[in-house]
């Protein structure tokens, strides 16, 4: 098996993707920044000086301390503290983790739904197509916020505030995943429609292969490039959606803050001079979304088949 | 002096990992009213040759050397502005796909009038009259009506007729036709070819016909060039080459045609396929597929030798000629 993996690695190194990546400084920097943030988020429990979830480590006396370099800073809190006295650096690390989890989780859910429905609509066509795409239209005509407000209210009412904190992250993944799957489904459907006219699909039908085998083994792998591109952009969108929901108080509770809820919690203190509680997580959010979008743009250019063939 | 003379033309493509040579040392000439065929398989560089004559090669392609002399003026060294005066005016081009020339959102008449007014100061009415005249020349049914139609309202054969009419608008001296009938059905193809031939003869226009179809070349042209892997390997009078090809590749190409084979028997076949530009073999590019290839062929590109009225780039042919000369010497 090692020979196969080696040749695959070689193939990747000779590929156009790798070639254009090497030459694109923006892509390299974006990728490195994203990698750094993802690693920091994954290893947050090891990297963070404090555990913001642990109430025992929090001292209210430390609240609203400024970052190092400003008057009244404490070197124990390099980025300062928030209104509850939590170390901002640790909170941001944990918050990035939550934001990324929601981003990836929501897109995973979107992808599963979107690919399944998109494949079925595109390949089976006719009534299946009409019904699935009308469902998608209806879904898109609800805004994510509206869905979140309703679902959030139902969740809060039925589980109570304490329990809600525990399941908020899954709820957000569910809401954003459900609200945005039509984006992926439409992309998949469009590329399936293009692929299914090609002769290799007819060749598979002539062989007598079943519908499911043709859909998943033959067509799906050939629609992955556009899915990959849109999924990248959708991760950024999901992170923003989550931040917006949290900012409105419909997302993560302040006990387990995401970047969005951190921004929100600091927002009340901007007037009193504690600008860092909002600004620093805000910057982290902007950088995170920006690098993902830049990578998405680069991927779209690379995977554009017209450029690719050359 | 020849109307068009191409001398030692080199065209390269700048791609990652260095330049690819698309055309190497292309030399040929075209006289007034002459019909020249450019034959080759896909990847031989025949379309690149056609495009580079009008200096239409777009990046990453560029002309790396040589001259394209039109009435003694070098098109390769000309400014874009001067070139524009010649393109479409003195030298017209016909593409395989009519929609490359026709704009789908403008009527045929508008496009033809614009093409005339781009080169001549002339009233709209007069331009329209010229357009109508050219449409009549290409024997399109109800030409007056066509002026106000859009390209999509015409059939493929009619579109190609319109393209020929557009090419004729400004009484060009040369028409370069790149596979003008490949996309058409056999019966329509025959009609379009017939028309093109008649018009060139009537108007004394020189025709450079780029095609892969040896039958068409035989019917239409007086001289032909055979291209392989960016080089001209054989050129001379069409009849002479078709009847008695010298280069092993040309021979193979002719003998591989189904009409040359015995029905039901295996066809003659050239093994392998044309190398891609990325890995052109050293020496004669045809040597890996050639049954006469010797050590010499793998090392050096053969020079042209003359056999009858045909120029051939092949060591085997050169050796045969040399042998013949020696035998004649020995006899006398």
């Amino acid at each position, binding site marked *: 098996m090692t020979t*196969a993996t080696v*040749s695959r690695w070689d193939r990747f190194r000779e590929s156009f993707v790798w070639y254009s990546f090497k030459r694109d400084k923006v892509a390299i920097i974006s990728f490195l920044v994203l990698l750094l943030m993802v690693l920091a988020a994954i290893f947050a429990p090891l990297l963070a000086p404090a555990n913001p979830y642990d109430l025992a480590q929090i001292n209210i006396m430390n609240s609203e301390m400024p970052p190092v370099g400003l008057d009244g800073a404490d070197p124990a809190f390099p980025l300062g503290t928030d209104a509850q006295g939590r170390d901002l650096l640790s909170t941001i690390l944990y918050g990035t983790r939550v934001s990324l989890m929601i981003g990836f989780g929501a897109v995973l859910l979107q992808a599963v739904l979107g690919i399944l429905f998109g494949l079925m609509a595109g390949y089976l066509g006719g009534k299946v197509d009409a019904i699935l795409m009308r469902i998608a239209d209806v879904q898109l005509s609800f805004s994510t916020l509206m869905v979140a407000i309703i679902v959030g209210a139902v969740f809060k009412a039925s589980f109570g505030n304490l329990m809600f904190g525990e399941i908020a992250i899954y709820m957000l993944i569910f809401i954003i995943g459900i609200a945005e799957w039509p984006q992926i489904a439409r992309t998949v459907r469009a590329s399936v429609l293009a692929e299914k006219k*090609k*002769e*290799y699909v*007819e*060749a*598979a*039908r*002539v*062989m*007598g*292969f079943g519908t499911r085998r043709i859909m998943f083994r*033959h067509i799906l*792998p*050939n629609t992955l490039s556009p899915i990959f591109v849109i999924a990248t952009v959708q991760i950024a969108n999901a992170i923003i959606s989550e931040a917006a929901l949290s900012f409105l108080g419909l997302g993560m509770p302040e006990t387990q803050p995401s970047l969005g809820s951190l921004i929100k919690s600091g927002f009340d203190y901007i007037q009193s001079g504690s600008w860092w509680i909002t600004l620093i997580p805000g910057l982290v959010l902007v950088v995170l979304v920006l690098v993902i979008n830049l990578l998405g743009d680069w991927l779209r250019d690379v995977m554009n088949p017209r450029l690719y063939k050359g | 002096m020849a109307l068009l003379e191409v001398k030692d033309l080199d065209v390269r493509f700048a791609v990652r990992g260095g330049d690819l040579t698309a055309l190497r040392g292309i030399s040929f000439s075209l006289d007034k009213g002459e019909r020249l065929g450019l034959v080759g*398989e*896909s990847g031989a560089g025949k379309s690149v040759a056609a495009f580079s004559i009008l200096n239409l090669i777009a990046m990453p392609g560029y002309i790396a050397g040589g001259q394209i002399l039109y009435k003694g003026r070098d098109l390769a060294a000309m400014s874009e502005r001067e070139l524009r005066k010649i393109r479409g005016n003195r030298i017209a081009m016909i593409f395989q796909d009519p929609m490359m020339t026709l704009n789908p959102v403008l009527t045929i008449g508008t496009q033809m009038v614009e093409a005339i007014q781009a080169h001549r100061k002339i009233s709209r009415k007069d331009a329209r009259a010229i357009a109508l005249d050219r449409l009549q020349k290409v024997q399109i*049914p109800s030409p007056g009506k066509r002026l106000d139609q859009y390209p999509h309202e015409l*059939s493929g*054969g*009619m579109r190609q007729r319109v393209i020929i009419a557009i090419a004729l608008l400004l009484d060009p001296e040369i028409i370069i036709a790149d596979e003008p009938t490949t996309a058409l*059905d*056999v*019966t*329509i*193809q*025959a*009609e379009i*070819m*017939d028309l093109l*031939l008649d018009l060139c003869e009537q108007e004394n226009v020189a025709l450079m016909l780029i095609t*892969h*179809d*040896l*039958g*068409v070349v*035989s*019917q*239409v042209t007086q001289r032909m060039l055979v291209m392989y892997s960016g080089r001209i390997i054989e050129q001379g009078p069409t*009849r002479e080459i078709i009847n008695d090809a010298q280069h092993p590749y040309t021979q*193979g*190409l*002719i003998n*591989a*045609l*189904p*009409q*040359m*084979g015995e*029905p*039901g028997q*295996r*066809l*003659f*076949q*050239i093994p392998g*396929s*044309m190398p*891609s530009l990325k890995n052109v073999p050293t020496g004669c590019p045809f040597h890996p597929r050639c049954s006469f290839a010797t050590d010499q062929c793998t090392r050096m590109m053969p020079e042209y030798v003359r056999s009858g009225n045909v120029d051939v780039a092949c060591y085997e042919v050169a050796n045969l000629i040399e042998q013949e000369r020696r035998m004649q010497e020995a006899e006398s």
Partner: protein
Amino acid sequence: MTSPLVSIRGLEKRFDLSGNLLEQITFKGGRLRRKQEAVHAINGVDLEVQKGEALCVVGESGCGKSTVARTVMGLLSPSAGEIHYGGQRIDNLEGKASLPYRRKMQMIFQNPYASLNPRMTIQQTLEEPIRFHHPDWSTPQVRDKIHEVMHSVGIDLDWGSRFGHEFSGGQRQRIAIARALAVDPEFIVADEPISALDVSIQAQVLNLLMDAQESRGLTYLFITHDLAVVEHFGTRVAVMYLGRVCELADTKTLFATPRHPYTQALLSAIPKLEDDRPNHIRLNGEVPTPVNLPSGCVFHGRCPYANERCRREVPALITTDGGTQVACHAVEEGRL
């Protein structure tokens, strides 16, 4: 005469252009009308393919030749008519019942650049059909079969781990042929298998198809627009025009004595090496669209011999003295 391997009976195929009911309704002259339009791709075709022969179907674009191929292979379902294979009706079979015919009947496509799955290696492309149709075969058995077909189409065993896009058009077409041969078919529909290839490669692929026919006893339904290929390859030829067969004959007979005016024009339009000028029979006009079929003989608009009867009455295929079957009033009346 033995019973044919494949018989196509009264085949018709229409493609609906008018969409759903809402799209069909138009408002014209102050009232709502329902307007239905269809492309009449095939209008009553009867053909029989004898075991071991290569039946060529020739015609220009839009004549329905590819639709015949796709309908025979079950890629399209006929609007009317039947397809029989070895005496068994197959156009209405579904699922498991159709599987044996999926193995016995294979297809080679026109565009070698689209007929291989870009994400599959050559090995996977060849292996999947074999494993699918022979789930009981052991791995060495499958491997031997793959090697056998790769060898017989002249492709290198090392190519297995590579992808389709790494090969030239001719090599891809060989791979596509290997895929078709991998399941040991008896009957192959070849839909313009060489028209996307270069001249020197066409000869290679034609030779390969002929070798395979000889060594495996294959029967071909060969779809092409190129009459020169037909003369070389075909046992019998059916000439199609606008969804109908206008002439059907042995290859030799057809090329020596074409009867139908359309066949004559088609033959004269082949550019031949010995010609110094185009010399073809001129036809009037162009092929009408198959949306609104002309009445009577579909060819009458372009036919130099058409008369009143041709405009009214559809000619039936009649057998002439030479054994040619031809659908033409002029031939029937002895005018031609």
